[in-house]
């Protein structure tokens, strides 16, 4: 029996990395005592070339309010917990070291009312001025928003504006012209050319984090699967990992293998959909029909074998929701082979299509240097030359046995993101083929241990869009006290802004699609 880790202990930064459980990525925890030590630790991570993964607040009755920051270090995940003092509800901003922390810290201010000290950006982020006070403050805590943090959200959101002759502004959203999620883009243009684009989000904010509170873990896993519907498997897997780490209950081997099948099927289905949509946005309806067909067939197989087209509720803490029989395995393998040859054929057509390549190449360039400086992962990061893929850098079973190569391109434009998707579909199909053949025998579910004192855990998974992280704090009887789900879109949306200048207004939908980021997963 493995011992769950008591998170509260440990001096600053001194806890060594370890792999507490073979099914989870290695992680270490540190609780710096003072703002100075926190900043010092974060600076050290920065100097060593670490990346920011996520940042969030936590405040539950009976626990100290704290800001948690997760970084990716060479060896694994490094978590910092900065406890807020009772008389000064502020925390040091790390945005000057990691610029991508800006929105995450503003979100913490919106949700808890704590002030990120040193952050010059005073604008709200998720808050549209529609809630009474910071919504994540526990009911029994008497605390109001600090005056510094108080914004005037009723006023118009102050976008950065470009001045000059012939410059005008195009506001788009929150409702877009199509079947798209809600969000607002503010374009500054001159003629047909884009000078700048700025995002304004929070329209899809559903208060998901408060809904986690007091749910049973299995019920909470359902909710995690609906943080961003297109990444249901990734979130459910990360959430389940977090619960399993917290309770010290490793899932059975077979379950881990089946989870990888689900995760790769989710990746393939989304990539197929994106490849079709990208063709469509570049005026090539044929691509949309063909990839739409492949995706729909995948979804139907999902429904038939796993019971849900988007694989919701297939991963549960303790394992997976259902087993695979011999017949099902054969069917899945056969589908892989079929899809592989179809995708190859379509790839040749895409590659040889002059009109399509003309729209793709050079459009929406994400500077690989910037991607490196910001430590961007996911499809977009890899398409700008970044070698980040958790399946490769921190392989958990079965990725430690059946290897998935990292798909990268250094071009950084729409065509690079198309190519990375093509490569990943191919690699995932090969991976599936091997895994389906060698699926180990055994149970597919083991009830996680119940916890009797608060324990925490974290799960970190390479979803189809990028790195998904879930953190959970469990109370007695296995209910969730607090949970956080981090979508990779948080870090990639700012990158999208950077790709826009110099492009044509009409190319924006194509660029946006090539990132295909989540609004719901971001707004939470």
């Amino acid at each position, binding site marked *: 029996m493995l011992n769950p880790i008591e998170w509260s202990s440990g001096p600053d930064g001194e806890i060594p990395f370890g792999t507490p459980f073979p099914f989870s990525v290695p992680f270490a925890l540190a609780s710096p005592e003072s703002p100075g030590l926190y900043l010092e630790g974060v600076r050290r991570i920065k100097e060593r070339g670490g990346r920011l993964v996520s940042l969030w607040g936590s405040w539950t009755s009976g626990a100290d309010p704290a800001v948690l920051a997760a970084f990716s270090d060479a060896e694994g995940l490094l978590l910092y917990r900065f406890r807020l003092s009772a008389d000064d509800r502020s925390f040091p901003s790390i945005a000057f070291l990691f610029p991508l922390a800006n929105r995450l810290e503003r979100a913490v201010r919106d949700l808890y009312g704590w002030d990120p000290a040193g952050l010059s950006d005073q604008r709200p982020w998720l808050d549209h001025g529609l809630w009474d006070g910071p919504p994540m403050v526990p009911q029994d805590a008497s605390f109001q928003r600090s005056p510094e943090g108080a914004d005037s959200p009723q006023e118009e959101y102050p976008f950065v504006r470009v001045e000059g002759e012939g410059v005008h502004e195009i506001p788009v959203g929150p409702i877009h012209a199509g079947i798209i999620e809600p969000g607002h883009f503010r374009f500054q243009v001159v003629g047909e050319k884009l000078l700048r684009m700025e995002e304004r989000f929070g329209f899809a904010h559903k208060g998901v984090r408060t809904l986690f509170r007091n749910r049973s873990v299995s019920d909470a896993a359902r909710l995690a699967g609906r943080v961003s519907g297109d990444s249901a498997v990734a979130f459910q897997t990360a959430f389940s990992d977090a619960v399993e780490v917290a309770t010290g209950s490793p899932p059975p081997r077979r379950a881990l293998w089946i989870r990888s099948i689900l995760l790769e099927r989710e990746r393939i289905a989304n990539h197929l959909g994106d490849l079709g949509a990208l063709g469509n946005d570049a005026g090539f309806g044929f691509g949309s029909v063909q990839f*739409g*067909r492949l995706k*729909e067939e995948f979804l139907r197989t999902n429904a038939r074998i796993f019971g849900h087209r988007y694989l919701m509720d297939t991963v549960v803490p303790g394992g997976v929701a259902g087993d695979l029989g011999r017949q099902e395995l054969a069917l899945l393998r056969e589908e892989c082979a079929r899809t592989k040859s179809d995708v190859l054929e379509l790839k040749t057509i895409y590659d040889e299509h002059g009109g399509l390549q003309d729209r793709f190449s050079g459009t929406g360039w994400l500077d690989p240097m910037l991607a490196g400086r910001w430590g961007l992962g996911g499809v977009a990061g890899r398409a700008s030359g970044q070698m980040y893929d958790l399946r490769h850098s921190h392989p958990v079973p079965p990725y430690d046995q059946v290897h998935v190569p990292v798909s990268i391109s250094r071009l950084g434009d729409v065509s690079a993101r198309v190519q990375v998707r093509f490569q990943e579909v191919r690699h995932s199909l090969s991976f599936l083929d091997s895994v389906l053949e060698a699926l180990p025998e055994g149970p597919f579910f083991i009830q996680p241990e119940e916890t009797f004192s608060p324990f925490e855990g974290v799960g970190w998974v390479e979803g189809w869009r990028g790195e998904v992280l879930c953190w959970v704090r469990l109370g007695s009887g296995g209910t969730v006290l607090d949970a956080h789900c981090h979508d990779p879109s948080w870090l990639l949306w700012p990158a999208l802004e950077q790709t826009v200048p110099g492009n044509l207004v009409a190319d924006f939908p194509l660029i946006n699609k090539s990132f295909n980021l989540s609004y719901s997963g971001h707004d939470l």
Partner: protein
Amino acid sequence: MHKILLKIFRTGTLTEPLPEPGPPVKPCPLVRGSLAVRHVDAGSCNACELELHAFTQAFYAPESIGIRFVASPRHADVLLVTGPVTLAMKDALRAAHEAMPDPRYVIALGDCACNGGIFRGSYAVSGGVPEVIPVDGQIPGCPPEPKRILAYLEQLVSAENKD
């Protein structure tokens, strides 16, 4: 070019026969033979949108029976709303509804839109479309499969269903 033609030829027709119409629905007055639909995402988890995308694909081919998605609520017969209606989307949803020409037929698509679904009870959602604008029909599911969407909309365009 020949590869494309060959592929089209080999793929053949994907469109499937129309599903059995679902339970009777409230008719949409003045609509005959064609239906203009405007979709509004009022804060869904985005899986309902995935199904709407799947719905527009060749298997279901809504355009073949006159159903098309339009860019402006001013051109729409039907407003198809997904999501639990977050507070931040409430005004935008009302504005879209207002911009529609009469009779402003509204469908709540997905459990969230019908009653808030899994997000019901949060401080940031209104708990479903009926809480914000009048609703004429509901298509439950989490998310509802394209077949169900088609089974509903089909009835709105078909001639028998006219008052």
